């Protein structure tokens, strides 16, 4: 079965609203989680990461929340802009260390920003 997945294939939000993209993972031993953004015709772009010893991490307009009890990861994007339109992937690292070593990606959620 799939070890990392997302709940919704498509999420449509109004410009200026906050977006929440969710991800479930199955391996409780996973240590490192990353959110990537992929725009059409481009490679995945790192957004934010979090390690299993943290519950929350904030970046610029983005926040990642990790709930290890229910094995759930979410990405919150504040005040979404047209440039936020993309496919968002969560990825899980079941190996020690960071980087992109042996990441397992989810299927992705397509975020659509409505004007």
């Amino acid at each position: 079965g799939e070890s990392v997945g997302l709940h919704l294939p498509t999420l449509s939000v109004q410009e200026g609203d906050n977006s929440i993209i969710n991800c479930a993972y199955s391996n409780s031993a996973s240590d490192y989680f990353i959110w990537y953004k992929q725009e059409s015709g481009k490679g995945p772009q790192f957004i934010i990461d979090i390690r299993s010893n943290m519950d929350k991490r904030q970046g610029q307009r983005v926040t990642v929340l990790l709930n290890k009890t229910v094995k759930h990861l979410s990405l919150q994007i504040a005040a979404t802009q047209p440039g936020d339109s993309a496919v968002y992937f969560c990825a899980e690292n079941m190996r020690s260390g960071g980087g992109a070593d042996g990441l397992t990606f989810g299927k992705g959620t397509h975020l659509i920003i409505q004007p």
Partner: protein
Amino acid sequence: EPEVTQTPSHQVTQMGQEVILRCVPISNHLYFYWYRQILGQKVEFLVSFYNNEISEKSEIFDDQFSVERPDGSNFTLKIRSTKLEDSAMYFCASSLIDEAFFGQGTRLTVV
């Protein structure tokens, strides 16, 4: 801003032929990776490379695949005898510590 560059952007090859996909990672990075994404599917890990050797590889990365860092700047993925199912977008990535940077990808089409 430094970036990972991949060439070619699109490669068409006949089944059974060898292909080499090329990548120039970010210059001070130490870790290098190849991933692939079959159309409509998830991004899948192939291999990671550190200190001039493979550090991890997935089940996909069988004897038909090999990687090389021939000259300290390029990082290549070779597929010896391509199959139809090798058609995918291949992404190279590099990292110094945690944050990995991906290239734009090479679209490989095997006909």
